[in-house]
């Protein structure tokens, strides 16, 4: 089932009066349960494309459809709701809220969704146990390692049962062993919960795990590759 589709999406930035074509006419689609990697060298437009399909940015032209609905037809508030309830985000720099504990960071998106305190607490605790980070519940981000923070970020991204999790260079700040363990975790979430994952990365170990690979070059999809199983 198609969950995300783009039609001739373009994104042009203004860089001190000079137009920069970050994404050029990209048309692609992602199905439910995909584990997709948007790969390419720096400046190829992979993060910009990820932001466009994550409703974080508006295309200069073209259309982005989420579950068949054109994102351009939605108001800013509706896009916020979409990001809150249907999408999960994992950032390169983890971006946890520094004044909240790991448990509170995970609860935060559920709080924004209006889930009752006791329910969100139980769900956050269960999620932390599932991801093997139960002992971090009361730790603040500055008391955790990068790998631990990124696991908490994963928990935050998936605890609201999103359709799609968008991960921008999630392993870039991690050593390879920690990055591999994190990818294992996300692969198992993908397999067990059928959560669609979309990565933007140039990390080889991310690329090799993608069921689907979109290789970008100069703002366009240079190559698209589907794999039957993980390498």
């Amino acid at each position, binding site marked *: 089932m198609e969950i995300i589709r783009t039609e001739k999406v373009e994104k042009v930035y203004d860089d001190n009066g000079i137009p920069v074509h970050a994404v050029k006419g990209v048309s692609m689609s992602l199905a439910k349960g995909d584990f997709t990697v948007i790969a390419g060298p720096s400046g190829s437009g992979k993060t910009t494309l990820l*932001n466009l399909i*994550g409703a*974080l*940015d508006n295309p200069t032209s073209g259309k982005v459809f989420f579950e068949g609905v054109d994102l351009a037809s939605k108001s*800013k*508030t509706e896009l*916020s*709701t*979409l*990001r*809150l*309830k249907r*999408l*999960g*985000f994992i*950032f390169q720099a983890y*971006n946890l*809220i*520094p*004044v*909240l504990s790991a448990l*509170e960071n995970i*609860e*935060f*998106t559920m*709080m*924004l*969704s209006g889930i009752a*305190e006791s329910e969100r607490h139980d769900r956050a605790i269960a999620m932390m146990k599932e991801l093997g980070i139960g002992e971090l519940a009361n730790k603040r981000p500055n008391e955790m390692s990068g790998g631990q923070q990124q696991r908490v970020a994963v928990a*935050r991204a998936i605890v609201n049962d999103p359709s799609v999790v968008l991960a921008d260079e999630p392993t870039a700040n991690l050593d390879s062993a920690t990055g591999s363990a994190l990818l294992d975790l996300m692969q198992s979430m993908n397999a067990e919960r059928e959560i669609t994952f979309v990565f933007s990365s140039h990390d080889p170990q991310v690329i090799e795990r993608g069921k689907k690979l979109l290789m970008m070059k100069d703002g366009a999809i240079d190559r698209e590759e589907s794999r039957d199983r993980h390498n």
Partner: protein
Amino acid sequence: MMILQLAWRNIWRNTRRSVIILISVTVGIVATVLTDALNRGMVFQMLDNQIGTYVSHIQIHRAGFKDNPIIQNTVPQTIDVDSLIGSVAGIDRFTKRVITFGILSSAKNSSGISIVGIDPEREARVTTIRSSIVQGEYLSGREREIVLGVKLAEKLGVGIGGKVVAMASALDGHIGSDVFRVAGLYESFSSEFDKVFAYIPLTDAQDLVSIGNRVSEYAIILHNREELQRVQATLESDLGDAFEVLTYAEILPLLVMSVEMYDQMMLVFYAIIGIAVIFGIVNTMLMSVFERIREFGVLKAIGMKNRPLFLMIMIEAFYLGAIGTAVGFALSYVLYLPLAQSGVDLSMFSDSLRSFGVGTVIYPVMTAGVVVNALTVIPAVTLLGAIYPAVKAVRLEPMSAIRYV
């Protein structure tokens, strides 16, 4: 609840900055509360001094006396006013006076004055004249004694035991005159009052202006000032149209108006303090917002809507304002309590204060108005000051905010 918690923790991210703004709010509150309490005390004292020195709570005259205080306008004798006053509930004590304008002359000088004939014992129970004597003695009951203000005595060049001649227009039109011996000098809260009012025995005044046993004025003190309107209405009803019954508010309209206008004047003062505080809050909150632009981008990216984001920043500002106000008010109260007992000695400004009818020791008064102003104005100002930074945060686009360096 989580937003409250988050806002609370956010204000302690930069402890030094928050403490500085808290100190500025606290100092602002202490300054406004004590200034407000002191000014209110001063205004109330001006009114109380006027009431206590001469005016009293209610005065009774012949109708028209207030506008035309001539000796012909004595209190009508158609009713036994003494007995009537004694029968009205709420009246504590009263005195009666003869009031006329005249000239007081000594060997060296003369001055236009108000001659007030009083029953010394009754007057001493109604006003502060006896306790205001600073030289010599109060009227003893002997004939032809006079009590003058120190300033008037200086002008006339007389001292205790000195002789002065009082002249005033009598009821039948002739000029009455008599010689008085200075028994005492008084100093009231108002130097202007002291220059004008001279006290002589009631019967001497009645003889001077040839009015028999008639009087110009009754001055009444109530048990409770809140009963003013009721007692006035009762007296008016019982005395009829031939009399005028005036409250101190009608006798001192400018002073009462200034008391009533005081709240409005203090609002201007609060506005000035508020403007000073608001810039501090705007500055602090803007710095706080700019430091967290990436974080706001993340919050918006993960689905935080504008309203809770706006609310969170407003709550942060409110916490700063509320804590500063609570600490400031507590500190003000601790400082206020001893000052309310001992008063604030402003004797270095005694001349100017006495010309306004205020004593040199001011007793601050913390009214409900002071408390309400202190507890509402500054927290409200902090909220106002946070609006602009909060709007800045709300207007951030998630991606540009996340990319912000």
